[in-house]
C-alpha cells in the first residue's frame, strides 16, 4: 500500500519553511549554516536545525536541515522548500529532494549539467566560487567565504535582518576581530548579488516575532555535561564513541571552568579516558562505591560492553549514572544517525533477572535536569540509572526552555551511615531492609575503625553481606530488589499527560525525541477530525498514570524510532497489557521521525481497521 509522503498544510508562508544545506564535510560549512539558524532564532522565530552527517572526517556529503515554524513545531517535517546545493557528489539526489514548486540555490560559477535541470522547481544560481575568488586571495578563505556568500544571498531572499547577522559575526569572532571585516564583506557580496539578480523575498520568508522569549539554543550533550557538574559528579570515566563523546567533553569543559579550587588551582573533579567501555563502567562503579558521584557517557556498542558490570552494580547495589546517547544499531550500525533502539538493552542490561531505571529527556533542559536527577536517584536507590538520550537530541542544537536550578538545592545522598550512626546502632547489616522500601543502608569505606565494613560482591550473600549459597537467603534478596523496584516507581519522573480527562478512545504514547513530531502529528490529525489523547513517558519503570492511560483507551499508538517496537515490548512486559491494544508507529531509517510519517501511519491504521467512518485518504490528498 502506498501512502503519500507529505501532508498539505495551510498556506502560511511566513516563518514556515524547511531549508536544507548540502555540503561536503570538512569545508567549514557548519559555522555558516549555524549562523543562518541562529539568526532566525535571534529574530524571535522558532527554529530547529539538524545535522545529517557521515561517519567520516573529510570529503563526504553532509546536510544541515533547518525547520522554521511559527507554530513552534520543533520536529522534522517532510518536504524541502529550499535547498542550498554546494556538493557536486550529492547534487542529483539533492535536486530530486526539493518539493514541487520549491527552490534550489547552487553555485553558478560553472554551468549546471543538463541532467541536473528538473521541471517544477526554481533555480537560484549564485556564482559563489567566482565571487569568493575575485574578492579573497587566501585559498582557505575562498573556501570558507563561499559559505558566507550563500548566507548573504539567503538573507535577502528570506529577509533575515542584516544587523542580526552582523551581531552574530561580531560575537563569533570576539577576540579575533581581524576576521569580522572579511566575513561581513562576504555576507554583503551574497546580499548584493541576490538583490540584483532575483525577485525577493521568496514566497516564504521570515518576519520578526517575539516567540523565543527566554529560550536558549543548545545541544543535549552539552546540557548533560553541565547537568553532571551541577549534580555533583566528581568522577567521569568514558571512552570515545559517537554520538556521546561531547558529553564527556562538555563535563570537562564546565568542570575546568567552575570546579577548580581558586586557592590551590587544583581540580575538584577527575576525568579519566578509559581503555574501553568496560573499564569506564568499572571506574564509575568503583568511584560510586567509594562515595563519589561518578558517571559515564556512551552509546549502544559501549552499553553492550558494560552489561556485565551493570548487572554487578544492580545486584551489589552500587549507584552509577550512565548516559546513553543512542544511535542506529545493531553492531556498528549507522554511527552518525539517530535511533531510540537501546531501550530493551538498557532496561534489562546484564544476565540474570536485572532491570534498571531509565529516564527519557526530550529537550536540552530535560537533559540538564534529568542528568542531575540521575545522581540523586542513583544514590537514593543504590543502583545504575541510565539516561536515554539520542544523537538527534545530543548532537543537534535545540531550542529549549532555559536551564533551571533551585538556589541552595541539596543533593540526596540516600541511605548512608556515618561513624556516629554506626556507633549508635546494633549489628550493621548492609542488605537489611529497615524501612520496608527495599533500600538498605550503605557505608563508605573508611567510615569507622571497627564497624560497618563489608565485602561487596556479585555473589549471593545474606543480609549482613556474608557470602552464602543458601537458596532462601538468595531469594529473600531477589524479592527485596523487587520491593525496591516498586519504590523506584514513586521516585522517577512522572509522565506528561496532554489532557486532564480522556477525550478520545484512542491515545498516542511517545517519549524522547519522538515527542515534537508526535505533538505536531496530533495537531495534523485533529485538523482532520481525528482526535487522539496523548501521554509522554519520561521514565521506566512506568507508574500508574501510564497504566491507566493504556487501560482506558481502546487503542494506543506507541511512537518510537526503532524497528521492533521496543518501548511497546517493555510496556507489555511490565504491565501485562493486551498486546493488541498497543499499536507500533515506527521509524528506523536513521533520520529523526517526521510528523507526516506519524500522522499518515496512524490514519492509515485507522482506515485499514475501519475505525473511522469516512474515507481518510481523501482528506490527505
Amino acid at each position, binding site marked *: 500500500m502506498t501512502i503519500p509522503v507529505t501532508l498539505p498544510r495551510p498556506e502560511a508562508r511566513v516563518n514556515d519553511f524547511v531549508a536544507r544545506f548540502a555540503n561536503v564535510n570538512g569545508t567549514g560549512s557548519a559555522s555558516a549554516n549555524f549562523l543562518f539558524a541562529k539568526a532566525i532564532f535571534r529574530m524571535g522565530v522558532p527554529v530547529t536545525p539538524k545535522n545529517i552527517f557521515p561517519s567520516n572526517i573529510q570529503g563526504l556529503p553532509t546536510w544541515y536541515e533547518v525547520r522554521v515554524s511559527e507554530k513552534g513545531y520543533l520536529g522534522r517535517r517532510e518536504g524541502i522548500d529550499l535547498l542550498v546545493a554546494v556538493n557536486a557528489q550529492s547534487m542529483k539526489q539533492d535536486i530530486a529532494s526539493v518539493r514541487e514548486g520549491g527552490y534550489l540555490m547552487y553555485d553558478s560559477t560553472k554551468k549546471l549539467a543538463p541532467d541536473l535541470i528538473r521541471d517544477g522547481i526554481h533555480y537560484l544560481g549564485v556564482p559563489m566560487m567566482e565571487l569568493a575568488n575575485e574578492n579573497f586571495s587566501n585559498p582557505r578563505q575562498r573556501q570558507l567565504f563561499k559559505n558566507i556568500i550563500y548566507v548573504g544571498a539567503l538573507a535577502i531572499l528570506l529577509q533575515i535582518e542584516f544587523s542580526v547577522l552582523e551581531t552574530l559575526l561580531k560575537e563569533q569572532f570576539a577576540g579575533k576581530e581581524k576576521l569580522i571585516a572579511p566575513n561581513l564583506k562576504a555576507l554583503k557580496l551574497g546580499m548584493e548579488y541576490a538583490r540584483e539578480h532575483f525577485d525577493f523575498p521568496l514566497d516564504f520568508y521570515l518576519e520578526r516575532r517575539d516567540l523565543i522569549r527566554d529560550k536558549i539554543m543548545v545541544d543535549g550533550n552539552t546540557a548533560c555535561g553541565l547537568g553532571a557538574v*551541577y549534580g555533583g559528579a566528581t*568522577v567521569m570515566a568514558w571512552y570515545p564513541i559517537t554520538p556521546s563523546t561531547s558529553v564527556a567533553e562538555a563535563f570537562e569543559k564546565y568542570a575546568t571552568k567552575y*570546579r577548580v579550587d581558586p586557592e590551590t588551582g587544583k581540580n575538584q573533579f577527575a576525568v579519566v579516558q578509559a581503555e574501553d567501555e*568496560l573499564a*569506564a563502567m568499572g571506574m564509575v562503579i568503583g*568511584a560510586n562505591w567509594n562515595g563519589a558521584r561518578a558517571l559515564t557517557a556512551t552509546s549502544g556498542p559501549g552499553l553492550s560492553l558494560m552489561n556485565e558490570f551493570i548487572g554487578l552494580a544492580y545486584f551489589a547495589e552500587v549507584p552509577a549514572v550512565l548516559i546513553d546517547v543512542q544511535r542506529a544499531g545493531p553492531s556498528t550500525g549507522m554511527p552518525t544517525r539517530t535511533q531510540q533502539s537501546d531501550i530493551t538493552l538498557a532496561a534489562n542490561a546484564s544476565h540474570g533477572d536485572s532491570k534498571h531505571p531509565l529516564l527519557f529527556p526530550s529537550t536540552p533542559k530535560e537533559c540538564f535536569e534529568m542528568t542531575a536527577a540521575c545522581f540523586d536517584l542513583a544514590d537514593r536507590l543504590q543502583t545504575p540509572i541510565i539516561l536515554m538520550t539520542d544523537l538527534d537530541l545530543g548532537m543537534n542544537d535545540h531550542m529549549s526552555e532555559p536551564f533551571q536550578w533551585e538556589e541552595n538545592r541539596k543533593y540526596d545522598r540516600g541511605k548512608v551511615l556515618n561513624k556516629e550512626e554506626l556507633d549508635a546502632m546494633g549489628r550493621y547489616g548492609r542488605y537489611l531492609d529497615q524501612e520496608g522500601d527495599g533500600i538498605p543502608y550503605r557505608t563508605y569505606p*573508611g567510615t569507622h575503625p*571497627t564497624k560497618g565494613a563489608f565485602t561487596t560482591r556479585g555473589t549471593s550473600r545474606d543480609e549482613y553481606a556474608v557470602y552464602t549459597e543458601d537458596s532462601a537467603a538468595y531469594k529473600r534478596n531477589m524479592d527485596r530488589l523487587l520491593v525496591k523496584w516498586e519504590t523506584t516507581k514513586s521516585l522517577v519522573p512522572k509522565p506528561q499527560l496532554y489532557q486532564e480527562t480522556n477525550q478520545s478512545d484512542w491515545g498516542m504514547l511517545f517519549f524522547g525525541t519522538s515527542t515534537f513530531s508526535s505533538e505536531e502529528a496530533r495537531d495534523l490529525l485533529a485538523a482532520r477530525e481525528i482526535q487522539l489523547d496523548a501521554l509522554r513517558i519520561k521514565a521506566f519503570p512506568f507508574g500508574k498514570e501510564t497504566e491507566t492511560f493504556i487501560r482506558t483507551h481502546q487503542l494506543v499508538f506507541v511512537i518510537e524510532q526503532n524497528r521492533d517496537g521496543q518501548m511497546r515490548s517493555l510496556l507489555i512486559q511490565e504491565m501485562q497489557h493486551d498486546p493488541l491494544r498497543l499499536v507500533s508507529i515506527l521509524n528506523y531509517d536513521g533520520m529523526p521521525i517526521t510528523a507526516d510519517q506519524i500522522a499518515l501511519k496512524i490514519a492509515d491504521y485507522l482506515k485499514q481497521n475501519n475505525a473511522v467512518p469516512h474515507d481518510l485518504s481523501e482528506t490527505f490528498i
Partner: protein
Amino acid sequence: MTYLKPLFRHPRLPKNKLGYTLKEYEGSISTLCAGCGHDSISATIVQACFELAIEPHLVAKISGIGCSSKTPAYFLGNSHGFNSVHGRMPSVATGANMANKNMVYFGVSGDGDTASIGMGQFVHAIRRNLNMVYIVMNNGCYGLTKGQDSATADVGSASKSGHINPFQPVDLASLAVELGATFVAQSFSGDKQQLVPLIKAAIQHQGLAFINVMSPCVTFNNNPGSTKSYDYVREHMHATGKMDFVPQQKPIQATYAEGTDTAVTLHDGSVMSLHKLAPDWDPEDRLSTVNALQQARAKNEILTGLLYIHTGYGDLHKILNTTDTALNGLTEKNLCPGKKTLDTINAGLR
C-alpha cells in the same frame, strides 16, 4: 580444614603503635584448599599492615574473580572489600582511588584474572601509575574451574591431568617493567621473610606497586612436571637480594657494603635496603632489570625480590592535579556552581 576461627588469642599478643594486635588485621576463615599458597600471602598482608600500623579501615581491598580474588575476605576484616568481576579489578580500583586519594588500595588478582581476561586493564592501570598495591597470586592455572592452564603456564609444563601446555607464557613481571611500572617485585608465597618487606615497601610506594607472587596450586598444579609446583619454584628461585624495609619513623641502622648493597628511599622517606646478590643489577635502572629478567628466564630461574623501582614519577592524582581533599568529601559548596552562574550560562546560549 576448619571453618571456625578460634576466638581465643594470647592475652599478651604484641601490639603495634596504634594499639592493635594482629587480630585486628585478620579476616574471616579461608575457604581455599588446605595448604593453598594464597592463604600464606593473606597472612603476609596481615603481617605487613600490622607492622606498618596502618588503620585497617583506611584500606580498601578490591579483587576480580578466581581463587585469588576470594582472599580479600580472608584478611583485614575491618576494611571494605569489593569482589568485582573477572579481570576488571584495576578499573574498579581506579574509580575507588579517584574517589578518595587518602586510603591504601590493595588490588588482588590471579594469573587468569590478570594475564588473560584482564590483561588490558592491567596494562592501563600501570600506564596511569595508579597509587595501589597490585598483587597477582600466580599459580599458572585456573583453580576455581579445576585446573585448566592459564596464560602464565610455562611451555612444556604438565598439569595434574598430564596435559602439556604448548603455548608461550606471559611473563607478568617483565611486562610490567616494559610498560613502565614504577615498582615491580616478584616473590614466592612460601617466602614470608622476603614478602613482608616487599609488601610494606609496596604500600609506601607512591604509584602502582606490582608484586607477582608465585603461589602454587596445591590441588591442581603441584604435580611433577609442573613449573609452578612448590618443589619446582623452591628449586628455581633466585633472589635478587636479601631485603629489608625500614619505615620512615625508625632511624636507619643498616650499613651497606659498597658495591653489593643499595638503599632506595621511598616517597615518604622510608627506605628499602637491598643486599644484592647479582652484581650487575641495579633496581633503579630499567634496562638492567630487563636484562636480569631475560637472563634468569634463559636459565629457567625465577628472579625474586624487588626488581625495579622508580620513585620520581607522580601517581594518577598528581597527573590529574586533583585537590587534596578526597573527592568523595566535597559537598554542594565545592561542587555546584549555583543559580547565578547558570543564569549566565543561559544568557550565553541565546
